[in-house]
């Protein structure tokens, strides 16, 4: 059974049908790309998958459980994590604490345990620190663990956002334009990181990206969205030669 099964998904904002009749299956451990011209509805799909928007039609099944229309907290607990197109970090908190907030539901303890510093507090905090440092190390951020998130340079902020998403222990990770604003070297490095994250954590990754080298370079399967509908899906080569895709990007009859 597929990890994520989306069937007939659609959403309308008033009279505007932003996404319609979207079907999508995502298998465990694979890397997927979601591409399309500006305004095609890519981020809207992410927002429906993560509960920010409630779909007006269709179903989203994650690992056999129906998560359609659930709120973002519930979906995070169910196992979908994401990053944002415009970076959303906890700017005034330390890099380490950003990741620890990500572990909110992974290493839980109660209000009173924290206030009264019960024995479980030390134990759980220790566990969190250990896990958080290990995650930061993967993204080469452990040196900056005590800095405020806002003090990190742009590329590192993008990485921290991925680290925070991974801290929620997801089954599926959604990356919204992870390479946006990065130079070619940083993009190359990010490709390595994304690939190694997939291999190390064994999770499925779905990413939106405009950098075609990035998408073609790492995604095993690419889905193309135009005017809220999926117009093609397949591997890089098939997509590149698909006349519908070329028409969507370059215009055509």
């Amino acid at each position: 059974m597929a990890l994520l099964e989306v069937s007939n998904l659609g959403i309308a904002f008033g009279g505007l049908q932003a996404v319609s009749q979207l079907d999508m299956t995502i298998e465990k451990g694979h890397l997927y790309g979601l591409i399309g011209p500006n305004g095609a509805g890519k981020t809207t799909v992410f927002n429906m998958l993560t509960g920010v928007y409630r779909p007006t039609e269709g179903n989203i099944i994650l690992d056999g459980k129906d998560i359609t229309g659930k709120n973002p907290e519930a979906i995070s607990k169910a196992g979908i994590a994401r990053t944002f197109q415009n970076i959303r970090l906890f700017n005034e908190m330390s890099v380490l604490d950003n990741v620890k907030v990500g572990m909110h539901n992974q290493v839980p303890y109660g209000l009173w345990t924290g206030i009264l510093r019960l024995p479980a507090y030390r134990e759980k905090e220790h566990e969190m620190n250990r896990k958080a440092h290990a995650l930061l190390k993967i993204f080469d951020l452990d040196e900056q663990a005590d800095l405020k998130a806002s003090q990190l340079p742009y590329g590192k902020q993008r990485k921290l956002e991925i680290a925070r998403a991974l801290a929620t222990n997801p089954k599926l990770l959604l990356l919204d334009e992870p390479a946006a604003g990065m130079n070619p070297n940083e993009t190359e490095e990010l490709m390595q990181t994304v690939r190694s994250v997939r291999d190390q954590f064994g999770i499925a990754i779905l990413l939106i990206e405009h950098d075609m080298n990035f998408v073609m370079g790492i995604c095993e399967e690419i889905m193309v969205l135009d005017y809220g509908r999926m117009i093609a899906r397949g591997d890089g080569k098939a997509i590149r030669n698909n006349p519908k895709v070329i028409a969507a990007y370059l215009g055509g009859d």
Partner: protein
Amino acid sequence: MALTRLKHMKKTTRSNLITFGIVIVFYLVVEALMAGGLTSSSFEGQLVPICAYVVLAISLNLTVGFLGELSLGHAGFMSVGAFAGVLLWTVLGKTLPAYVALPLAFLAGGLVAGIFGVIVGVPVLRLSGDYLAIVTLAFGEIIKNIINACYLGYDENGLHFSLTDAASMGLAPDGTTLINGAMGITRITKASTFTMGIALVLITLVVILNLIHSRTGRAVMAIRDNEIAAQSVGVDLTRYKLTAFVISAVFAGFAGVLYALNYSSLVARRFDYNTSIQILVFVVLGGMGNIRGSIIAAALLTVLPEMLRGMDDYRMLIYAIVLIVMMIFNQSPQIVAWRKRVAARFTRKKGAPAPQKEVA
């Protein structure tokens, strides 16, 4: 030895210990001065209010600085806490020994303030920014006016209550009036001491600082920094907003009891809009999210007006100007950039030589 250990400690732990140290040193110095007869009676009269305002400032900082919501009704929570605590103290203080009745009075004050925190918080925390400020402001005023119109007494037939006047309570001639409308509660047996105040400050510090450095505190700060991102990692917004808001209210209730038990009478008028603003000034001046700053600002701004009695007419005017200046100083992009430049120049002087010299 102890100092070297202090240096190697984690930054946050060290900072917390310094905060506790300041409070304890303040207590010891004041106690020593009092024992030596070096303090004026007007200063001694300020000691309990200082402690109460410090607790209020720390607790409001939890809402304003850590949760990031502007609340203008903190005096309202202080008020309900004060009335609940004093009522219990008046009733129980006659029969139970003080060491039982007093803690119960404090607990009652905190509990009632906490309940009001839930009642106000559940609908209000769905709002944000200006709207939250407006509703909390209204809450404070409503509480003040309701308590002002409250008449409560008891006789052998039980409790009597009225919202119109003393006569309509229907109290027997030998009954006792507890709350007498706008006159409030009178003939309170004063019970607050400076030591009690400092104890409450320390308890508040332990609870709030531990809270901030726990999972709950991080969730609260995450909501402040970015609601959408907090939700996306599984933080329940309503739950943590409410938790912070209610804890803040509970401590305002404790502070209200401490404050009220320092005087022989208690009227609702004392906890008005100006008091809420005053507490907010402590928080803003001390730095939002800065607990130590709240303590120092609350203590200084409670003592200063007493010393500068001549300027009493202008106090609220000065507060307003200080608030505006602080907001601009902390928020205006140009001024923030200017402050960074100045700070950078200072750190460069202290640290390595300027980069140009290295090139030459």
